[in-house]
């Protein structure tokens, strides 16, 4: 069921559409919605939380994280998330099966492994076939905070450097290059960095993106039954 526009207590966010076909969600709403959508698409709760945080980070910095996420989730609603987790062999991480790597799982694992022998601190890592490299950016930010150094990713001739919460890029970061499926190298660049700083600005999201996330988020809910209705509310008159 899609939530009605006026549905009270919504956990998702059916909001009035602006004239430009865009909507503005608060960062809190967006994070919650993204996490629920990720869960609705079959990611485990702990990874869905990571997705929520990642989308919030992107959206607050001018990237359409919500769009990146919905594209990624729509590719993989069949529930093959386990096959999209990285198998770590030396410095090369690839998926277990024929599927591409999920940037959510790969990014999360990069963070978990950061200072371990297989992690970024020990050297560059090649991620093979990442389904939407843009979603790796927030995890690079996490790595950068942890290691206290800039972290970079390079793919198909593109390079983005993240230092703390700042994003530097030589080329424009279009949706296409962020969502393509590509081999990505993660590394710690030399301190010198001449690339332009991407100016943070909160991105609105398209109504279709919102609907897509809402639809997935709704699949985490349970249809009503007589018994469930009885449990809600005081069961007495409020006219007192």
């Amino acid at each position, binding site marked *: *069921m899609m*939530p009605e*526009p*006026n*549905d*009270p*207590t*919504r*956990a*998702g966010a059916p*909001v*009035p559409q602006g004239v430009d076909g865009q909507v*503005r*969600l*608060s*960062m*809190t*709403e967006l994070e919650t919605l993204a996490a629920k959508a990720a869960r609705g698409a079959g990611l*485990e*709760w*702990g*990874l869905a*939380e*990571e997705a929520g*945080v990642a989308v919030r980070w992107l959206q607050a910095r001018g990237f359409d994280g919500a769009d990146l996420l919905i594209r990624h989730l729509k590719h993989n609603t069949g529930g093959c*998330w*386990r096959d999209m*987790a*990285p198998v*770590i062999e030396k410095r090369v991480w690839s998926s277990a099966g024929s599927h591409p790597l999920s940037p959510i*799982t790969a990014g*999360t*694992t990069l*963070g*978990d*492994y*950061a*200072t*371990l022998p297989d992690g970024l601190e020990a050297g560059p890592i090649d991620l093979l076939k990442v389904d939407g490299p843009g979603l790796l950016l927030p995890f690079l930010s*996490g790595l950068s905070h*942890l290691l206290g150094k800039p972290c970079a990713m390079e793919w198909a001739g593109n390079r983005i450097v993240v230092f703390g919460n700042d994003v530097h890029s030589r080329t424009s970061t279009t949706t296409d290059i962020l969502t393509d499926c590509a081999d990505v190298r993660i590394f710690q660049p030399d301190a010198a960095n001449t690339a332009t700083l991407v100016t943070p600005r909160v991105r609105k999201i398209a109504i279709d993106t919102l609907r897509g996330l809402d639809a997935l988020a*709704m699949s*985490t*809910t*349970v*249809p*009503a*039954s007589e*018994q*469930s*209705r009885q*449990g*809600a*509310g*005081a*069961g*007495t008159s*409020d*006219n*007192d």
Partner: protein
Amino acid sequence: MTCSDLNPAPEAAAFRRAPSEVMRLDRMGSAHPTRLSFLRVLLRRLQAEGWTFDRPVWDIDAKGIGRAVYRAIGPVRTYSLVAFAHDLPDHMRSDRVIATAWDATFCLYDGTPSETDLDRLQANVPLQEAGRISSTELSLSRANRSVRLFDHVLERLASGQQPDVAEIEAVGYLMRTTAVYGSGKFGAADRAAIADRPELTGPFQAEMLSVWLTRSFTVDMVEHLAALRGGDSAVRLDESIRRRLGVGNSTGLGMAPFLVRHPVLLNNWMAAREEALARVRAQPSATPEAVTILGQTLEKAQRNAASWHSEHPVQVTKLADLRRDLTRIEEKLAAFPGEQDHPWDALWRWGGETLSIEGQEALLSLMLEPHGDLIDGLAGCMNADEAAAFRIDGTESVGDFRATLGRDYDWALNTDFDKPQQSARFWYVSEEKLEPRLGDRYAEDGAERELPLCTGRMAAELARSLKGWADDQPLAQFLLAHPEHRLMARRVQICARYPYSEIQDNLIAEDMLPIDLLRCKLAFFGASHFDPRSDRWVRIALFQGAPYPQDLAEEKSL
């Protein structure tokens, strides 16, 4: 706690209660408001900083329809409660969060709203969840009249009489809020955007300010309507009666998951309160002033207990315990502090041996009251940087992690979740209303969509999956193989650093009472007269007995 390095009372550590004692549902469900409750913290700050208040807009017609603005003007910033009054037919009055119309609707505006702002808000705030607010709004709320009391007060004032005090005591408020939304809800300002303002750094300060100003609105409304009805013969509320009125609040399951979902915040609330108790117990003696205040506070608590009514069997028992225990405390205080060393600790230990849990937690609140200088600063430690605690440390060894899990979650690892009574419930979000509900796992569909609030069972499953993993393997490797345990692994690492972060009870047990969760949270708000209407639905009052904006500057103890 983030402030531990600055703790001016390190000797208190020896007097701190263990999380295994504090973080139990029966004790959390007996919590009483204290001077660290958020509404007290708010009022103390407003007074100390010399905030002023006015009502620049009062545009309410003879039917009680219109809008009003109440401003709180601080040294740096101004906040405005924007109130819309409606004419609600009785048959539409519902406290459920799913209601679609109310007697009054509100938002807290960041600054002083212009006419244009008010028009924009008028098109949205009365719709509540169906409308949309923006980053200049900090909260969104609504309230319904207590029909009985509102009508009684209105009739009396209109005819030149004061209302019956017994009627006032029986209800305690003219209106009750049925939801107060903050923190980014429905487009409102994100907490992160305002959390660095000193006046809003503490938890729920914007929401508390909104409710406090709402209280003024409820009194203004009834006096306004009485004046219109009674003309020259109408009178205003007596100061002493006005004081007795708070703002009611009606709330249900929706609030319950909050404490589970915000473990670091829960820790910081609990740890601050426990540190406060420990500091008081660590005092080598009791000053005569403190003993006097303790006695006065007890009297107030007894009056409060006398006017606290509930028909819910659980609460009826607790109220009987409370009244009996307050009498015991009164008897005990006749010889307090006596000659003994560390008299506060002796009093506390006596309470532990003599009183019910309800009475012990009431004693905690009483003991904190005379010690503002010693403990009020702890209010500054009750917010949380949740983002900073989000990261999992994947380098932790499985051996260390397993040991932590065994130490902090023994309460869960010793529970047999295969027994139906231990896994009888499941938490879920209803598709129909998108509100959290609690289902019966063995009688209702939907358990496969269970919310991850069953912390105990998740801990037990995590422990089971860890079997066979060598101690020297990193947690990162385990989580890559078992992503289903990631959420719980995060909680375990949080609990290791924040010992009061986890409720140490089975939240899906057959006999679990959601109202215990509600009471704990509401006590931290500062709620009084906790009155369950079912095992998952309660009414409370806020700000009863507190000063109004016009009285704040002169108030002696806050």
